[in-house]
């Protein structure tokens, strides 16, 4: 399974989810966010021979952020992904290195962002999850997976 194939599978699944969900306004629904993420993990991560490090769920209001510390190894390929509880929400992921510099981001205006990265060095990185276009507190779930 190549990285391109993994990303293609993930992209396809995201579209699948996008078409399956009826667009809604943002509202607190942690179960929906977690179910959405679990579907992504099952199909695009585990189903593609990749592995899950961990996942977490949280909530944020519009333009609020939640930051995660993540240790990444050089030589590995990581997939960082998330799901918000409503299709009307724009959930963004940004990854920063230990100098505070942006490594990569997914700022596309949807509720299921993902970032794939091969770290330049082993160490601590920060994954920033930011909520946009939310009319209320929005639940989201995020995960760190890695290529076998």
């Amino acid at each position, binding site marked *: 399974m190549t990285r391109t194939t993994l990303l293609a599978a993930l992209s396809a699944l995201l579209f699948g989810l996008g078409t399956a969900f009826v667009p809604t306004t943002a509202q607190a629904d942690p179960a929906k966010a977690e179910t959405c993420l679990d579907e992504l993990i099952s199909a695009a991560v585990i189903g593609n021979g990749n592995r899950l*490090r961990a996942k977490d769920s949280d909530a944020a209001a519009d333009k609020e952020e*939640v930051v995660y*510390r993540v240790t990444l190894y050089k030589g590995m390929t990581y997939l960082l992904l998330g799901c918000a509880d409503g299709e009307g929400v724009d959930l963004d992921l940004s990854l920063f290195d230990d100098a505070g510099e942006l490594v990569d*981001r997914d700022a596309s205006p949807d509720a299921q962002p993902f970032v794939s*990265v091969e770290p330049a060095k082993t160490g*601590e990185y920060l994954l920033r999850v930011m909520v946009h*276009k939310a009319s209320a507190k929005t639940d989201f779930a995020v995960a760190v997976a890695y290529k076998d």
Partner: protein
Amino acid sequence: MLLSRSTWAASTALASLLLLNACGGSGTPEETAPAEQPAEKPAEAEAPAADASTKIDFAAASSRGKTAMFVPAPSEFQIALAAAEVTTPLGDRLGTEGNIEGKSKPVVALETGRRIANVLLASKDGTKDAVLARMKAAKAGLAALGAGESVLGETDKLIADYEAGTIGNAELPPSMDLLNQKVQKALNKGAGEEVATLVQAGGWVQGVHLLSTVLSEGAGSKEAPALVHQPSVLGYFTEFIKNSSAAKAGDEDVVAVIVELDAMSEIAKKETLANEDLKAVAKHTGNIIARF
């Protein structure tokens, strides 16, 4: 190398084919034509970013950062070893299981984390009997921590599947990853965050001990020492253990572990690790494991 939405166009053809499956039954082939739907995504990606910042105050953000996904999984460490050209078999260096009888809960948690890591490390080149013994030892640790019937049942099922040959050595690491998720969730909910984190710490210490040992013997690429040079993870565990109830109660084993972690923290301040540093790390982690 970055591989996010920016490389999306390159995978359009594959995505399009898969899209047919993902959306199966939701429309006619014409409505879900491969060439049409994927084209929407790059257009979205070109929309102005809601958050355009390219810099973050790392220290400030890290200090308030959540740690739920901070520590690498034991099997992730094993893959990183291969990436760093560390080919030395680790299965015969795992040592005997530590004693959990009469030990305080934090020490049992550390040893259980070590046992879980040992299952994964043994699965690469260990015999079936050896791996089975490691699995059963890990389950005993989880039982001693009060992991709960659900997790213990899942562990029993994994042991039975492995014993029956339904799951082989190659399938064991991903299965253990999933079990580990459930273990962490159950321990956080039942035994508490302290126990769950110490289980993670035990696995990490075992991994660092084995790797620093083989690296000090000359194994791996020149970049391999970076795998054991993780000051932020070390600092996280050290602070956590220092603030644990067992440390505050003066638990003899935990106090001894803290002394070793502090010594490792001094070494971790260096920019890079020399061979004598790797030997020192192997000695300190060995001293920690000897407390189990």
